């Protein structure tokens, strides 16, 4: 009884939220797992057949490959560029507020508000090609060629740069000036101090940045969808597109199996990162 009483306030405070999470997420997701083993039509048991269908689906393979490639390229690129800018801001600029505001601004602009610009910029008759043409460089149909993928990378970095810079800056300012001072006395150059002191101290921030940037990388679908619609060029056909298209066709069996696969992959990634994170202690 006393044991129960001890927990009572905590449970009462948590309950509304947990109940909501349970009803809107956990319970229906359990249903999705169940459905991933059933047919869509008469809900009879088919074992792993849906999973096999999904893995053999050409569109799924294309989308999964593109998504992996997208994450593998945009994450390191974003992390490197933002670290470079944050480091320059931290070392060379006294008042960083103006720059923080400027780099964070894209985060506030609703995707739909800038779609018009992306369309005008990357159209085959668009602004970017107008510039290229004026320099006599061969123009490219950006959204209907393999470059569409890279357009998406640029848009992603534009949107997430500020967020990541703020994180790096927080990490940088938590490094004590004394350590640098001591290293300087020992005759360490700036480059050496960056490698030996700055980078190792930033490792915990790196984990968070990786996780959050990964999470945000899925939101690039907004831009992709609003600029190029349901069926964009093959190079930028992502998992988000295929889920959207399955949803429209109400392909419940494929969606269920696909959702479980993606959830498991993300779960494994989170646990791996968590482990690496714990090791840092």
């Amino acid at each position: 009884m006393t044991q129960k009483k001890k927990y009572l306030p905590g449970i009462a405070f948590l309950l509304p939220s947990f109940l909501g999470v349970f009803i809107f997420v956990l319970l229906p997701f359990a249903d999705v797992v169940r459905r991933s083993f059933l047919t869509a039509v008469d809900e009879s048991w088919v074992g792993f057949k849906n999973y096999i269908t999904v893995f053999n689906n050409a569109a799924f393979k294309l989308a999964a490959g593109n998504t992996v490639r997208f994450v593998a390229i945009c994450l390191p690129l974003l992390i490197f560029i933002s670290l470079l800018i944050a480091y320059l801001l931290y070392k060379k600029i006294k008042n960083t507020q103006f720059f923080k505001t400027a780099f964070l601004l894209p985060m506030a602009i609703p995707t739909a508000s800038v779609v018009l610009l992306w369309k005008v910029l990357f159209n085959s008759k668009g602004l970017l090609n107008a510039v290229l043409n004026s320099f006599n460089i061969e123009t490219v149909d950006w959204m209907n060629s393999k470059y569409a993928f890279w357009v998406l990378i640029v848009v992603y970095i534009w949107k997430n740069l500020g967020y990541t810079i703020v994180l790096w800056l927080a990490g940088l300012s938590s490094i004590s000036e004394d350590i640098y001072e001591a290293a300087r006395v020992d005759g360490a150059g700036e480059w050496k101090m960056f490698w030996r002191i700055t980078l190792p101290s930033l490792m915990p921030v790196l984990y968070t940045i990786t996780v959050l940037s990964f999470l945000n990388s899925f939101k690039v679908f907004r831009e992709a969808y609003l600029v190029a619609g349901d069926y964009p060029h093959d190079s930028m056909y992502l998992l988000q597109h295929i889920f959207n298209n399955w949803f429209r066709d109400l392909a419940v069996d494929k969606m269920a199996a696909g959702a479980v696969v993606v959830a498991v992959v993300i779960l494994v990634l989170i646990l791996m990162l968590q482990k690496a994170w714990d090791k840092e202690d």
Partner: protein
Amino acid sequence: MGRKLTYIFLFLLALLVCYPFVFILTGSFMSGAEAKAYLLPMITGGDGYVNWRLIPMMPTLKHYVELLLDSPEFFSMFWNSFKIVGCILAGQLLAGVPAAWALAKLKLPFKKLIFMIYIILMMMPFQVTMLSNYLVLDQLKLLDTHAAIILPAVFSTFPVFIMHRFFVSVPDGIIEAAKIDGAGDIMTFLYVGVPLGSSGIISAVILSFLEYWNLIEQPLAFLKTKSLWPLSLYLSNISIERSGFAFTASVIAFIPALLVFLSGQDYLEKGIVASALKG
């Protein structure tokens, strides 16, 4: 690199990053005819390329007037957005603040496991929960209503996670002192926890506002009736031929987000940083 050179480099980069904003803003003051003339190669697919002026030849407020006085459908979308975001934020506060407090400061069975579940759910992209959302909304007969967007978002675990970070840093001594003075759990939460964690709550609200003002995936999936759409989805449906109007609508859709961003930038940064600290 010298200090001056670095400054110039970063300044040019910042300008480049802000260019989209300037582009839309200038477009919104351009007459429809002027914008159309610049964008003609894109609309007709004819010869030549699009060009653009950063200062309109003949600046005009015509589209603002048209939009504000003569576009009832724009207003109803604007209202939809406000209603959806307002309800989501209110719900997130009602359910999320006490939950974050419980996870940070109260005794709970399986606390670690529950918190881990919250973190994992926060990481799942919409595509993973899309079907499960659909199934439960269908069961509750909520599809094609605003509740279909609002309810799942209310129970998003991200704000709980952010607020938890701030509540953890409330010193236990103050809570003990309040208890000794005879404050119950609710009083301690309301008069100690909420005020001391207020910057966390504001951070979570700002991050949520920017996220939900920008909703695309959920209304696209769960709202069939176009008159229920939020502004974010409606905007993208204005065709390029009406570019003058589209620019102005884009700017007006951006204004609430810009105000929230500018007035809350400190909290926004705090919230971003809080997500990086180890708990």
